[in-house]
């Protein structure tokens, strides 16, 4: 597919990068901001714009004469040229290009600097292909492709977060099921690509998967270690059973034990405070359920719809069409 280049001006690039990059001491702050994944607007329609994001690649190199980017978002062997960003009519050493990319996608990319291929030195997301080559990686809004967790981890996490959220109540479960079944086929395809995650957790697991790849990368190890420990604990308790398939009570008990900071069988040498993990999980579950669906949770705005159904909450009035019904605000 030919790459669609988007005109975003130099001021935009400076606005979204330099406060993280420019400094005399320390390293780049909030490196997860790169590449910049933002709303797309085609100037005409919310409906057609909504399928895409604008992705801005930025690379700093004061010496380079030519910078480009190649990746799976375009043609793998034809670099998209980055232009040199200017300030007060002088070159800044920053290079940038904005391309249109579909929502819900994961891509790998590398920069080409005067013919050399380099990783994005700022973006911490990396991906190794089957042939062993390392690439930089990004994903767009509403992406449901797992990037941080394996399947067993996702399923276990799913069971854990339902303990935190209100959706395990029978009436709320019913509401979610109805909500899902009432959507048209195309809405379902768009909003629930990972149907096995759409249940009582409204996509929270997917939200966490994305958050730990980017903004809260520093918490990924906590999850990896604790999920392994929980898996061990449950396997020891229920020999021969798949932890993710255990009954509700097993997870309710586990929640109480985590809350009390006393989980029989927990290996404290590997992770000191099980309760700390529960606190992380609580914050992430709450945020993932009710944050804007672009962050990967709140599938199809199901949690907002639940609030609207149970309480007074006309979220559609504020949120951009076609997700909401506000046509003044473009997202």
């Amino acid at each position, binding site marked *: 597919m030919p790459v669609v280049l988007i005109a975003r001006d130099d001021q935009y690039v400076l606005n979204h990068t330099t406060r*993280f990059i420019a400094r005399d*001491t320390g390293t780049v702050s909030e490196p997860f901001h790169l590449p910049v994944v933002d709303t797309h607007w085609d100037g005409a329609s919310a409906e057609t714009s909504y399928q895409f994001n604008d992705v801005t690649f930025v690379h700093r190199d004061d010496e380079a004469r030519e910078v480009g980017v190649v990746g799976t978002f375009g043609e793998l062997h034809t670099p998209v040229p980055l232009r040199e960003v200017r300030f007060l009519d002088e070159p800044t050493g920053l290079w940038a290009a904005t391309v249109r990319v579909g929502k819900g996608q994961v891509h790998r990319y590398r920069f080409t600097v005067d013919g050399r291929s380099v990783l994005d030195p700022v973006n911490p997301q990396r991906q190794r292909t089957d042939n062993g080559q390392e690439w930089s990686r990004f994903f767009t809004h509403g992406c449901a492709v797992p990037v941080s967790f394996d399947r067993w981890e996702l399923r276990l996490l799913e069971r854990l977060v339902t303990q935190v959220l209100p959706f395990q109540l029978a009436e709320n479960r019913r509401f979610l099921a109805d909500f899902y079944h009432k959507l048209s086929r195309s809405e379902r395809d768009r909003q629930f690509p990972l149907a096995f995650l759409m249940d009582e957790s409204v996509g929270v697991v997917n939200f966490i998967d994305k958050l730990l790849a980017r903004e809260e990368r520093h918490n990924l190890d906590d999850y990896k270690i604790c999920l392994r420990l929980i898996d061990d604990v449950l396997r020891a308790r229920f020999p021969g059973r798949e932890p993710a398939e255990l009954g509700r009570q097993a997870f309710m008990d586990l929640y109480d034990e985590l809350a009390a900071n006393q989980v029989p069988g927990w290996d404290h040498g590997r992770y000191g405070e099980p309760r700390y993990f529960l606190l992380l999980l609580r*914050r992430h579950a709450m945020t993932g359920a*009710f944050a804007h669906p*672009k962050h990967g949770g709140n599938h199809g705005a199901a*949690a907002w719809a639940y609030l609207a159904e149970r309480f*007074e*909450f006309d979220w559609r009035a504020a949120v951009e069409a076609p997700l909401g019904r506000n046509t003044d*605000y473009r997202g």
Partner: protein
Amino acid sequence: MADETFDAVIIGSGAGGAPVAHALVRAGKRVLVLEKGPLFHSQHTSPDGLSDFKRDEEFATGAEKVLQVQGVANTGVSFYSSHVEPDLNDEPHVYRDTDGQDRVTIEGYTAQVVGGGTQLYGGVSLRFAPDDFRLRSANQGRDDLRADPGGDVAREARDWPFGYDDLEPWYCRAEELVGINGTRDGQLKPASVDNYQKPLEPNDISAHVAAGMDALGFRRYRTPLAVITEDHAPSGRTVPTDRESIKTAFVNRYGDPLGLKSNTWVSLLHPISTQPGFALRANCVVTHLSATNGRVTDVHYRDPLGRERTVGGTVVVVACSAIESVRLLQLSAERDAGFADRINGNGLLGRYFLTHCFGGASARVPGRHDKSRTLDSDWATDACATPEFVRANGLWAGGAIYNNTSDSALPISMARTWAANDMDTMWKGYLYDLDMRGDQFDGYLTENFGRQLSVAFMANQLPLPTNRITLHPSVRDKWNRPVAHIDKGWHSHDRAVMDVLADRCREILARGGDGVQLIGFGHVGNDVRRIANHVLGGARFGTDPADSVLDPDCRAWRFDNLYVTDGSFMPTSGGANPTLTIQANAFRVGELLTTRV
């Protein structure tokens, strides 16, 4: 020699800087605004039709970050900042806690973006009351003040160099050009011109506040809010056809993608941005000033990529918000003894740092209301700012009371502010309430969602020389410059003021109708860190060079061309949210400067 020169160089584009730029450019002058933060657009000012602000709860209070600053007592804690607050690890503010230890805080920042704090503010745009300008005279000879055994009010209260009537025309100018909706009737603050736009219908939850104020005999008015509700000719902004759609809970702590909130970018700077005399450089941080013989010759700044540049101005206006303005002057003084002597010969720079006495009450109302259709506040009253009220309660000064309608309106914000009332303790209440899960979570939503209502007060804080901003001895920012060190405490009389006003807030809710259950009431009197986003004082103006940093024109006493126009000029903090007064004063100074450049 500086790289280039302008008639005026203005540092900071918020409430204190933008009005000066507006006045000078309209008068045909060549002005450069240097702003540390990015130029985040609203849709109508953006070249691609998209705003950099979003209706997204993750923008107001984002993901967890971990404090890595060394040498303070809270290294390793989590913090959650908005997308336009600096990374605390890059540019921390450090305060001295009551236990004598230094801690980093997120309090005391407004927002670092073109428009400054006015991008995120709730837009509550009250005038100060007439007596707020003359608290020394008003309290002369009083012996009935509560909790002031040392006579500190008599010693420390100051009159402003001018009175309410002198600032009144500038209030009118600010209200007209900024774009504010509200009602006049019932205010204690006389206006020669009514420039308010018509307010929208209040959210129905606010009826309880109206009822409570009425029951107490408090005259009320629609809270003046810096949000346009009608087309606004001075800034060329238009409103959606359906005016009710202006209401959204994405107000306080959110930039407005539609540009209806009257931040200083959309209201004052964007309208002059096509004028030949106007230049704005975003992402440029000023590091220090240098001067020769009382004339600032060079403004030193780092460009977006961090390269050093200089610029000169016939006048130089500092408006970085109080803590950062004081710090910029102190950093300049640190490099040059002559500068230090001129700016701080009397030792007052950084002293008399101020915020507001604040607090309030909250309740749960019997019915359920859609709080997502709202602006930040519906009703206000000046009943606790009248001289009679102030005297009857043994206080030195009064304050404003208004209700909040947008708080706890959105699901994540309700959880993260649950039993936590400041930026540093964000999330803690919800996280540790471990029983709140499953059906109890559902119960929590049933009990609280769309049912929480709060009333807040803002009152004068007693100025004290010990409340001060200095340069931190060891903690440095990402440019390797010392960061601001905040020493702040509450006077016993401040607590008396807060006790009285918090109790009035409680009464308003208690009398708010059948079924209203009080959740709590109180104030910040036991927390030295709290700054209310209102960062004031530290470079106060006055008529006596021995007693102030700035002259009545906001010019540094011993400089020819150095002005300070953000909140730091205030000698007392006023009995209301400060921004409209900062703007009115900045328009006044801007007009003065048109004859000086």
